[in-house]
């Protein structure tokens, strides 16, 4: 039983130190800079910010005008 508790404590301390170290390392690496750019990385020239990309079939504004059939 005693060793179980020793182990739990040792493990908790090691894990805690590792976590703090990882966080410090991530900050040094610049992980927290440029976060806004990260959020925008899903957009590109063809599907820029502000463009809605999903409609019910046949109900997109452009398609109502075009009514193209292939």
């Amino acid at each position, binding site marked *: 039983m005693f060793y179980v508790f020793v182990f739990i404590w040792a493990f908790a301390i090691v894990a805690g130190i590792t976590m703090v170290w990882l966080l410090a390392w991530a900050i040094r690496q*610049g992980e927290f800079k440029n976060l806004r750019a990260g959020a925008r*990385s*899903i957009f590109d020239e*063809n599907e820029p910010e502000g463009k*809605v990309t999903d409609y019910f079939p*046949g109900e*997109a504004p452009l398609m109502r005008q075009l009514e193209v059939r292939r």
Partner: protein
Amino acid sequence: MSAAVETNPQVEVVSRIEVDRSAEGAVTIYWASALFWLTIATIAGLISSAKLHSPDFLGNIEWLTFGRIRPVHWDTAIYGFGGTAASGTLLWLQARLCQTRIPFPALLIAGGVIFNVGILLGSIGVLMGQSTGVETLELPLYAMPLLVIPYVFIVIANFKMYFTRKTSHTYVSQWYLMAVTVWFPILVLSAEACTNLGAVDGVAQAIANWWYGHNVVGLFATPTGIAAAYYLIPKVIGKPIHSYHLSLLGFWSNAIFYNWAGTHHLTGGPLPAWTITIGVVGSLMMFIPVITIGINHHMTMLGSFHHLKTSPTLRFAVMGSMIYTLSSFQGSLESLRSHQEITHFTHYTIGHVHFGMYGFFAPLMFAMMYYAMPRLTGNEWSSARLIRIHFWCTLIGMLVYAISMCYAGIRQGMMMNDPTAPFLDIVRFTVPFLWIRTLGGLILFAGTIAFLINFWRIVQPHRLRFVTPTLMTTERDYNMLLNKEKELEQNDK
């Protein structure tokens, strides 16, 4: 270290259309299997549900006795539907976010087939009475390699895409997807080792069992669902997520706390108090990621709710993310000892599981499919009406199910804690609610059928296009797609 402009020059730039095209075979096979298993799981669920209020329904058939069809319901729903839907999501989302073609498509397709055979064999095994007897891990051992091998393919493909990608940013969704591929194999292997392979027994096995049972939802279904929401909501409405800082906090707190929460499934049981306390603390700490993720999803939506009217993807995604918040709050509160005293052994738990899985995870997978399938196949969904039916059936069926079961569970638990209430009176009290649950299940089933019809039509060959894809919102997009397709066809020749 300006990550924003950094790109990997060795990797060629791949356009979105090429990415989607490369993913078509593999992802479609996973999602088609997902729908197949969803149908089977719903039928198995309906049979189990009906058997609880009318025990003689399909009575005296040993293969379909409640204790066998009920685990088949879980296994086909979690591994059959959840496993394949999440795998398809993972592959497509990772390919898109890394802007790379899907590697080894043939291997992945073969993996999809093997996985289905595994689930089929396993389910038949359980129906024949070969269940391992470990709740949540019932599939017989001979089926497990067939489930593990395809997943190894997916893990390899995922790592390959992630480590050879062109983009420099790791988007939030990718954190979750990478985490899933690291977590899930470890989760399954340790759980199988501790239960069915017999490394531990007795109460230690029960802890391992519920550590797994909770984590298979928390470290597999949930992160995939969140990844889908983090991509779909901003992408559909064309607005970046509310706060990237918060998403970072949400991710790591989720990663740290969720996997400690499982032992609350054994509250009151023969466990040392500290294991339960860890479970409760873990569950309560989940408020941090849930609130941050909730803020991020809902604040992004703020001001864009009118798009719900016009976008099927957004409807399902927002339903999923809202129920994620609700069901996670419910789950955290449920872990409290005073709450568990009442609801632990009752239908409340069943209501909560379905609220989470069918209210949060499944709609996000549906949203994923609604968004991606037209882009993968170049076809459009054949019927807007069927999509609407699917949405309303999912929402209403889910609410009927969750509310009736949670209410019945609370009352059932209170009666059980009153020693003067005869047990059979409690059983009689729950029967009307079990009927309501069957009704809720039937509504969900109707929605599934509507989706199946639509899905069947969209995977037909290109010459059977029903309408022009609406996913092209400007003429420029449309012409671009036409040109690209011509180009690709010439390349093929």
